[in-house]
């Protein structure tokens, strides 16, 4: 149960992984690698194929094509053995609602055959970590989202697996609990645990060591957050503060240099391929209408900007292909 079972320092290796459901391609030949000890995020909208991928890696869903290894074990032929070395938290944090906190922990303890000598210690550790000391005898169904989430995480790591798969672990949980949860993830990562997380929260993606952007079953980008923000976006993003942003937006949209405009906070974010040209055009257009512009600056794009841009590019490329197919 230690990191030595990881081959070449790679916890997860995936090559051309594919999954079809009755003609619908949920995961379309994706390839990536996750290093040991990394916090790897799988980012994408709902239905993109995140859960499907994670399920294939956990050995609970058979792939339709491609190859993959987890902890050095093949996901086609050694799926059952993989389950000894991983912890999995499914999307519904499926704990047994009619069992108490302690009973749930005891159950998973038994399932993972934790040695009797360590059993008590591990149980106390999970209860402590999840902050459930006063609730050890409460029925899990009565707990609020944040507690359930931490308990589910705890149950998944009772046996100290080297690799952790978390499927949308923070959905429906309040921001403070989310933050707390990510602190736990960092702790684990610090101890050398590989954490593979799927999420659709862009801000969470920033917490990861590396991110894979997945859209409609395809991996459209895979790199560190920094690199993605700096190098993946062909366009520039301008941040502008002005008065009457809503009306300003209507005017600016039509400018040829402007690819896209969106409200952002009290101002606007403008996506353009030619930032100088666009800045000039905007100043002149708005100036002509009497708008007062506080500032227009080039900013580092947020991951959301990057993602949206990449998706749109992908869509533009996909469209002609689709029509040919039909």
């Amino acid at each position, binding site marked *: 149960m230690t990191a030595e079972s990881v081959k070449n320092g790679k916890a997860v290796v995936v090559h051309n992984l594919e999954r079809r459901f009755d003609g619908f391609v949920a995961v379309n030949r994706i390839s990536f690698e996750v290093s040991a000890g990394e916090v790897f995020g799988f980012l994408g909208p709902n239905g993109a194929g995140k859960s499907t991928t994670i*399920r294939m890696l956990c050995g*609970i869903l058979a792939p339709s094509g491609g190859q993959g290894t987890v902890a050095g074990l093949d996901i086609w032929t050694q799926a059952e053995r993989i389950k000894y070395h991983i912890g*999995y938290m*499914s999307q519904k944090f*499926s704990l*047994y609602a009619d069992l108490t906190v302690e009973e749930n922990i005891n159950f998973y303890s038994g*399932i*993972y*055959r934790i040695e009797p000598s360590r059993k008590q210690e591990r149980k106390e550790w999970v209860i402590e970590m999840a902050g459930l000391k006063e609730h050890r005898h409460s029925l899990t169904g009565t707990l609020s989202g944040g507690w359930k989430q931490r308990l589910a995480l705890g149950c998944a790591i009772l046996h100290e697996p080297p690799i952790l798969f978390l499927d949308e672990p923070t959905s429906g949980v309040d921001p403070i609990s989310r933050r707390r949860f990510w602190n736990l993830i960092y702790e684990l990562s610090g101890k050398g645990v590989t954490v593979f997380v799927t999420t659709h929260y862009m801000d969470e993606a920033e917490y990861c060591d590396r991110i894979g952007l997945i859209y409609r079953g395809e991996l459209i980008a895979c790199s560190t957050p920094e690199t993605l923000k700096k190098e993946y976006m062909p366009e520039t993003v301008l941040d502008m503060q002005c008065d009457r942003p809503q009306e300003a937006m209507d005017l600016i949209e039509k400018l040829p240099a402007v690819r896209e405009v969106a409200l952002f906070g009290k101002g606007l974010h403008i996506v353009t391929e030619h930032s100088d040209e666009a800045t000039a055009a905007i100043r002149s257009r708005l100036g002509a209408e009497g708008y007062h512009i506080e500032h227009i600056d080039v900013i580092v794009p947020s991951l959301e900007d990057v993602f949206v841009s990449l998706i749109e590019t992908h869509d533009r490329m996909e469209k002609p292909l689709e029509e040919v197919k039909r």
Partner: protein
Amino acid sequence: MKFRRFRAIARKEFIHIFRDPLSLGMAVAIPMLLLVLFGYALTLDVDNVGMIVWDQDETPTSRNFISRFGGSRYFNIRGYAQNYRDVVRALDTRNAMSALVIPRGFEGQIGAEQPASVQLFFDGTDANTATLALGYAEAVASEFSIEVLTRQLKMVDGRHMVLPLDVRPRVWFNAELESKNFIVPGLIAIIMMIISALLTSLTIAREWERGTMEQLISTPVKSSELILGKLLPYFAVGMFDVLLAVLMGEFLFNVPLRGSVVLLFIMAGIFIPGVLALGMLVSILTKSQLMASQMAMVLTFVPAMLLSGFVFPISNMPKVIQFVTYLIPARYYVAIQKGIYLKGIGLRYLAGDAILLVAFGMVIIFLAIIKFKKTLN
């Protein structure tokens, strides 16, 4: 197969059962209810069949004849008709199930040694009761007929003639001919099939529906540990139900138990796992509680009630259906139950059926374990 994982599953299932007192209560209450109903309220014995009489003769002889019916335990005179319409009305409204019509001149004919006849009408809707009532009626009439003959003879000859045949009917095994004596033992088999259909058919489907199964299949737990672990608590519930049924049969209904009690429980212990596993197999295959319950009802409970020999004797069924009953485990268990209770027979006669039940149980459990896949879709 690792014991600790098995134990974890079994323990969890026990907790589920006890945390749902409503279901558990039903699992105990339904058998008890059925036993009480069958023990007290339900009987196939035919008594007090309603009869309406149209006595067109109104003589001592005709009244004597009528009293044979009214006085017997089988018939109950509900009224006297004055015409045919009354008779029809009585049968239509189910005020009476049978009608006796004695023609005018009945006494005269009997006295004059001429052929006499009466008419009996039956409402055949309830074929069972009608058949039995018909039989009784014919028996009553037959007796009367023989008496008439004998008296006629006496008047001719004065000698006392005896009937050639002395028919001695004897009943073995259930001399009281009480239907509850054979229904209660068979009922235990039915109860087991019901519990299996209701409880185990839901358990696996429920985990799929709630999402907890997805979590479970990502762990190293084996199919065999899961199935057997889940079976154990329901087996305990089942044996408890059997104990309850046996106790109620003994102390509440005075159903005679002539065979060995130990054998009774051993046989129950052999029968129950297979039946529970069948319910579980349904749960594995359907993954939906609603569907599992429908399928389980058709597969376990309906054949148990109809084809096991519990109420409808198998030998009365068409050959094809009889053949089918060989595939139904409840058939063997009902026979075993009746055998132990009423005939007091032991392993010497029951070994064959017992072995079949063991084989059945093992096959179904094996199937359940194989069919359970630790993957989605």
